[in-house]
Structures are given as C-alpha cells and as structure tokens.
C-alpha cells in the first residue's frame, strides 16, 4: 500500500513537472513580449484554472489514500475506561472536520476553475450579504458548541482524580533519562519526598523519617491490576518530562517542584491486548520489516534486530535533553492475582535502606 502511494505521489510530481516544463516552453514564445507577458492572460488563466481542478482531485485521492493506507497507524481501541469515550469523540470530530474539509476545498478549487478569467467576462459586484454571513457564522457556532460540550463533560470527568473510591496510588518518577515507579505499599499512602533527600540508595528522595514511606516500593516497570482505578502522582527530579501512555489515552507533564496527577482505569490486560486481531497483524507487519532490516544489517556485519513483541509503554513526550528520544518504561496490565504476586517480589524502602547500610 505504501509503495503504491509513493509511486502515485511521485507520479503526480512528475506530471506536474512535465506540465510546467511545457508552460515554460510556451512562455518562451514570441507572444510574450513586453511586461504584459508577465501578467496572466487568458491562456494562463485557462491552464492554471484547470490545474486547480486537477489539484483538488489529486488532493482528494491523496486524502483517501492516506486514510486507507494508514488506517493501521491509528491507535487501536483504548485500553482504559475513559478511553472509549475519547475514541468516540475523536471519531466524531474527525468525521466532522473531514466533511468540512471535503466541501470547502471543493468549493475553493471549483470556483478557482469555474471562474477563471476570460476576456469579456464580467465579474459580479457582490460585496455583502448579511443573511449568508449570518448562516455561516451560525453553523460553526452550533457544530462547535456540540463538540465543545461533549469535550468539556469528558474533560471534567477525566481530570477529576478524586472520583474513585479506593484507587491504587502510584508515583511515576522522571529523571534524565528514565522512569521509576513508586508503589505506596500496604497503607496505600506515598511517603513524603523531596530531591533534597536523595542520597545513596534513596534515589527518589523519600523522606526517611516519614512513616508512610517505609513500606513504599520502587520499581522500574509499571505493573497495574486490571479494572482497578489508578491515581498517578508524577514527580520529576530535574527538568520537564511528559508521561505519555498512548494506549490508555493518558498524558500528563512531569514538573520539577510540583506533583501533577492523572488517573485512569486500565481495562485490558497486556495478554489480551497483544492477542487482539489488530495487534497481532500490526506486530507481524513490524516483525516482517525487522526481518528485512536484519538481513541488511547482517550483510553489513552488524547484529540483527530482536523480534518485537508488543508491550504497553510509557514514553517521554516533553523535550528533556539528549536522550529524550529514548526514555521509556514498560507497562504491564495483569490480573489482580498476578499483580500481587509481582508486588511481593519488590523490596520496600525500609529494606532497601537497611540493605544499603550493611
């Protein structure tokens, strides 16, 4: 599909070049003497008007081709509770704007073609029409009001981090260039923390004197039990970062000096997400690409690429320095049971400190 697209668009470029070279030839003919030769004449208007028409047709082809060829670029169904609402709103908005796009581009280019200048053609002196202008002010007002209202309701809902009863509280901690997670332990309360406490094994700056912090656990992967609301507290030790979890339709900037929050409920386990039809197809396509790449690499004496298996990820989405492009963390969504099992393997802050002293 992509190859087809490349060929198609390259062909468009070539046709355009060819047509243009024809005009340049024409421009050299003796007809174009004097300064008037540089002002559009009937022949130019005719040609350029037709190009406008071809252009909009080509543009439609391109838009449709992009939507078809790139349909698997769109993120798969959301893996969080609020995500399906997000997806519906996105779909509706996209449909609305594509309809407007198709109509207005058609009018714009069609008029450019239809009314291309001709000797003797009289333009219509038409300066105002209050009714028309009222109509096309009103239509966007109504459509936008609808989209806005929906958006605002979802927004207030999504951003209300206190709405859940008994959520899991997790800290996501960012630094140049990586992520850590802090689980709040059996008390489900994170201990106080500040960069001024960072020392030795205490890499997150947890206040050693705060009892709430003793049972906190620091991990390098984010494990979440499915269907339990999670409230994330984000903290950064150095510069701005942004915790972006695209498959959960979640993102929040991580700001040094303050704690930012976001909450969502993961609804699909990693295992289930991997085995959706979309994901298996996508992953096999990616692995095919990686196999081809590996062949080239091996031929050049390099190491081959590992085959890819999908895992949810969190990535940094705010410029933060040289390795911004490689600041990621694996996310695992699993059953409550598995989650608890995994949690048991983690060390509490108290133990970490004690170990460090030995």
């Amino acid at each position: 599909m992509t190859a087809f697209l490349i060929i198609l668009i390259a062909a468009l470029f070539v046709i355009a070049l060819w047509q243009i070279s024809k005009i340049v030839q024409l421009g050299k003919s003796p007809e174009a003497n004097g300064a008037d030769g540089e002002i559009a004449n009937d022949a130019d208007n005719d040609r350029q008007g037709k190009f406008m028409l071809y252009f909009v047709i080509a543009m439609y082809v391109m838009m449709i081709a992009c939507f078809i060829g790139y349909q698997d670029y769109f993120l798969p169904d959301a893996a969080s509770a609020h995500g399906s609402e997000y997806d519906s709103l996105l779909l509706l908005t996209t449909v609305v704007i594509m309809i407007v796009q198709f109509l207005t581009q058609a009018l714009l280019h069609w008029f450019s073609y239809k009314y291309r200048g001709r000797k003797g053609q009289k333009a219509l002196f038409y300066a105002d029409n209050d009714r028309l202008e009222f109509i096309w002010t009103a239509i966007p007002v109504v459509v936008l009001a609808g989209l806005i209202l929906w958006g605002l309701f979802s927004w207030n809902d999504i951003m209300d981090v206190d709405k859940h009863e008994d959520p899991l509280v997790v800290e996501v901690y960012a630094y140049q260039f990586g992520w850590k997670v802090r689980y709040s332990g059996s008390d489900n309360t994170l201990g106080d923390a500040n960069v001024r406490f960072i020392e030795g094994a205490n890499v997150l700056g947890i206040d050693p004197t705060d009892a709430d912090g003793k049972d906190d656990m620091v991990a390098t992967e984010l494990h979440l039990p499915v269907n339990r609301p999670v409230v994330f507290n984000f903290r950064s030790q150095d510069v701005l970062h942004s915790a972006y979890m695209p498959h959960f339709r979640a993102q929040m900037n991580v700001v040094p000096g303050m704690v930012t929050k976001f909450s969502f409920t993961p609804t699909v386990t990693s295992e289930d997400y991997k085995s959706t039809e979309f994901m298996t197809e996508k992953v096999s396509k990616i692995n095919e690409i990686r196999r081809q790449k590996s062949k080239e690499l091996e031929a050049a004496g390099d190491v081959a690429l590992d085959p890819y298996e999908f895992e949810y990820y969190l990535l940094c989405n705010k410029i933060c320095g040289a390795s911004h492009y490689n600041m990621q963390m694996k996310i695992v969504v699993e059953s409550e049971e598995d989650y608890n099992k995994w949690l048991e393997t983690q060390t509490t802050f108290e133990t970490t400190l004690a170990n460090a002293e030995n």
Partner: protein
Amino acid sequence: MGQVIAAATEHGHDDGHHHHKETFVTKYIFSTDHKMIAKQYLITGLIMGAIGILMSVLMRMQIANPEQPNVIFEALLGKWAPGGVMDPNIYLALVTIHGTIMVFFVLTAGLSGTFSNFLIPLQIGARDMASGFLNMVSYWLFFLSSAIMISSLFVELGPAAAGWTIYPPLSAVAKAMPGSGMGMTLWLVSMAIFIASSLLGSLNYVVTVINMRTKGMSMTRLPLTIWAFFVTAIIGVVSFPVLFAAALLLIMDRSFGTSFFLSDIYIKGEVLAHQGGSPVLFEHLFWFLGHPEVYIVLLPALGITSEIIATNSRKPIFGYRAMVASILAIAFLSTIVWGHHMFVSGMNPFLGSVFTFTTLLIAIPSAVKAFNYITTLWKGNLQLNPAMLFSIGLVSTFITGGLTGIILGDSTLDINVHDTYFVVAHFHLVMGISALYGLFAGVYHWFPKMFNKMMNKNLGYAHFWLTAIGAYGVFFPMHFIGMAGLPRRYYTNTNFPYFDDLADTNQLITYFAIATALAQLIFVYNFVKSIFYGKKAPANPWKSNTLEWTTGDKHIHGNWDGPIPHVHRWAYDYSKVNDNGEYVIPGQDYTPQHIPLQDGEEEMNH
C-alpha cells in the same frame, strides 16, 4: 485599456516635499525611507528563511535515515556529526533554531516587517512612517538580533537546543544540556533585541495608521491589508513585552540565582539551591505571547491575500465589515487562548475548560474569513497570476490546518495528541505554510512596486505548483504518524519497535521535504534575476485600486512627486457597474480609490 494614474489635481496642505542629497550609505544602508527598510527586511528575512529551511531538511534527513552517516552532515555540521552521524544534541539544536528562525525571523520580521513597512505609508497615502528614524533603528536591531542568533550556531557547545519554547529548567540549567550554556544566553540576548525591534516597528505602524492617513481615507475605507497590519502591530505591542519579561526572569534565574521558574532540582548528582519557582509560570508567560504570535504571523498574510484575491478576482472582497470584525475578534480572542498549549501541563484542569471554550470561539471568526474568501472567488473573473495562486493556496492550507485545530483545541482530545507529530503537521499547515504562502503572494504581487520590474510568471507558476504539492506531501501524511502517537522532537524513532512501520512514511515525507526545498530555488533565481533583468513594470500591472499604484515609477523618498492623492471611495470598487450595467468608468473594470464619485454613482455603503 486606459489606466487612470494621475492623482487628483487639487493641491492640498500635504504637498511640498523636498529632496535631500542622498549618499550610498543613507540610501541603501542607514536609510530612513520605509520602502528601502521594507526591502532590507525582505532580503534579511529571505536569507534567514533559507537557513531555516536548510535546517529542516537536515532534520528530515536524520529522521528518514536515523543515525546513518551522511556526507552532507559531515560537511555542514563538522564536529557535531562525528563520522557523519548527527549528534542527538545537535538534532535538538536544529529543531530549536529552525523553529525560532521561521517563526520570529522569517514570518514575523520578514513578512510583517516587510509588508507593514512597505504598504502602510503607500496605501494610506503618507510620505513615510511617523518616525523614519525609529523605523531604521527597528531594522538594524532586527539585523543585530539575526546576527547574534546566527553567531550562536558557532559557539563551542552549540546553540540553544531546548525547543523554540525554551521551557525551563531545561533551558535554565547549563548542566541539563550543552545548548543551555552560552548558546541559550545568546538566544535570549538575540530575542530581547528582536523584541525591542518589533516594538519599535509596531508602535510606528500604529501611530502611522492612526495619524497619517490622507484626506478621505477613513478607517472604513482602509484596505484590509492595512487593517491586518494595524491590528497585528497592536497584538505585538500587547504580547511581546510579556515574552520580554519571561526572558528577563529566565536570565535572572540563569545568571543571578533567582528562582522564578525553578524549584527542587537535582541534576548531575547535585541539588540546586533554587526553591519555590514554577516552570508552569514560565509556560503561561511564554504562551501569552506564543499564541498571539501565531496571529502576528498569520494576520498580515491574511491581509495580503484579501487584497490580492479581491484584485485578481476583479470583485470586491466579500463582507468587508465581517472581515474587519473577524480581524478584531481574532486579535482580542488570541490573547485569551494561550492555555490550550498547556492542557496537560499540570495547571488546574478547570482552566483547561475555559481555554477550550475560548479556543473554539476563535475558530468562528477564522471560519468566517475562509468562507468570505471562497465567496469572493464566486462569479469572479479570476486573473490567475502567481500571487493569486499563492493566495488561493493559503486559503486551502489555512482550512486544512485550521480544521485539525478543532482536535487540538479540545482539551479532552489534546490529551493523546499533545506534542505528537499531529501537532507538528497542524501548526506547519495553519501557520507555517499559510504564512509562507502569504509572504510569497506578497512578493509576487508587490515586486513590480518594490523593484519596478516584473517577476517571471512561468517560474512563478512552477514555484507555486511544486510548493503546493510538496507542502501537502510533507504535512498531510504527517497527521497520521502523529495519530500513531509518534512524539515530536525525537532524534530517532528506532528505539520503539512499535514505530517501525512508520519509517516508510517518514522517508516519504523527507523526499517531499527535499523536493519542496529545492523548488524554492526557482523562487530565488526568479527573484534575483528579475531585480536585475526583469521586464520593466507598468505603473499598475494588476489593475489595482489601492493608492500605492498611483505613485508613478520613480522611487523617491516621499512617495508621490506631486501632492498626495485624496481618497474618495473604499479600495474594492472592482467591476462596479452603474444602473445601466456599464462599468463606473466605461471600459475599465476597476475604479481606484483616488477617483471621485462619478455622476450618478452611489458610494458602496459597506
């Protein structure tokens, strides 16, 4: 077709201009003539534009073939591309300086500076700006800031690299990245000077438009170009000082140990003393300018296209009053939407709702403008000159880019597309490409006035079509890689196998980008060649109504050799007919502004 050029014959109070002896230096370098200053702005802006576009091509080449050695990198980047492989820090530096140059140096100074300077006095009927001297100072400050920005490319640790938004702490702490040392200092100094230049220019434009209009040029008879430049200048005066304040506070945080934007930072094994500041405060200050900046860039382009579309359609602009009202509404609203860049910054989510609301409000005047342009074309007699094609192209990209703004302006939807390539695609179309088209349209249209020569139209056509195809080829597919969740400002995407299947599309985009950049050489060739060898321009090549075409072809400081013409009508009496269906001036489909009302003619009551 006879052209009415002669100005009104009555002698007013406004004639009697005297000529001074001019030396090379006063004429070409330290000139106080607004026309010469405009050309200085244009040439400087175009040179900066060439640098900015070259940088974008380097970025695209890295994205297409990440971490591959490239002789071009080796040649241009030297020690920053060891073995021809681009260094990640220098990628970020390119992103930053490209963005800065394009937004401020090309599309603020190069576009608004050029055409405000050139057209305000000529179209309102004034001999020069209110203060020619301040105008000259404004240009030279701009030149100085350009020189400093370029010089920052050569400092030891590289130029600023924290993004054109220079968010602290990344930009404030020298240890955070190499570019945040000397490079960032130079960036801040350069921008401070730039702001001073912009303020001097803007104040001059505002005063000139208010005070120096010729007799009869009421505000409601102003061409839309002037309305756009006028309101742009006001937005600039309101918002640039805030960026200046932000830059100043940032300088203090960097150099004098204050904590406006910094708090609780541990970096390279050391806790910094800063306590109590907030990076979010910086974001507010930055975007209080940053968003209006989008319109500082766009409104002049829209003003230019209004004029060009009306002239070349041989029709009045549709809905003059609505166009003026839209400009005013956009100007007002643009100062209260900045928070849409900060939905997920950690600010209070309630504020997010407010900014969603104001943002979608600003879509309405923008939509009105688009509809009015389309209606202006309807039943016209379109003269498809290159300037007209670029103007139509502008409306097209303005719509395409503006529509995706509805997704980004909706706080809910922004959560998942914020800072992805979807944003890059959006703002390049709506502001970058649209404003660039406005700049090109303006150059093709007013070149005959600026240089008394015609540009070659066929090269203009070639330039337009290649650019139009290329711009969509670059930026339309880009939406889709953004929808896949691909973050911007990534040096390479290879560390996420999930993005492997986007690599083809990224290469496609790069090929389009290179082709488009090459197509700009056609423009450069045409521009330079036409200055020297172009055909001599007629007095009013596009048969336009506005006053600049009444000066005759002598370039004198003072614009009109004789008295300044008076104005008797608005600028859009194209194809106006009397009751008998005959043009107001028989045989001529336009009636310039300085022509008195004819017998039996009614003034348009717009």
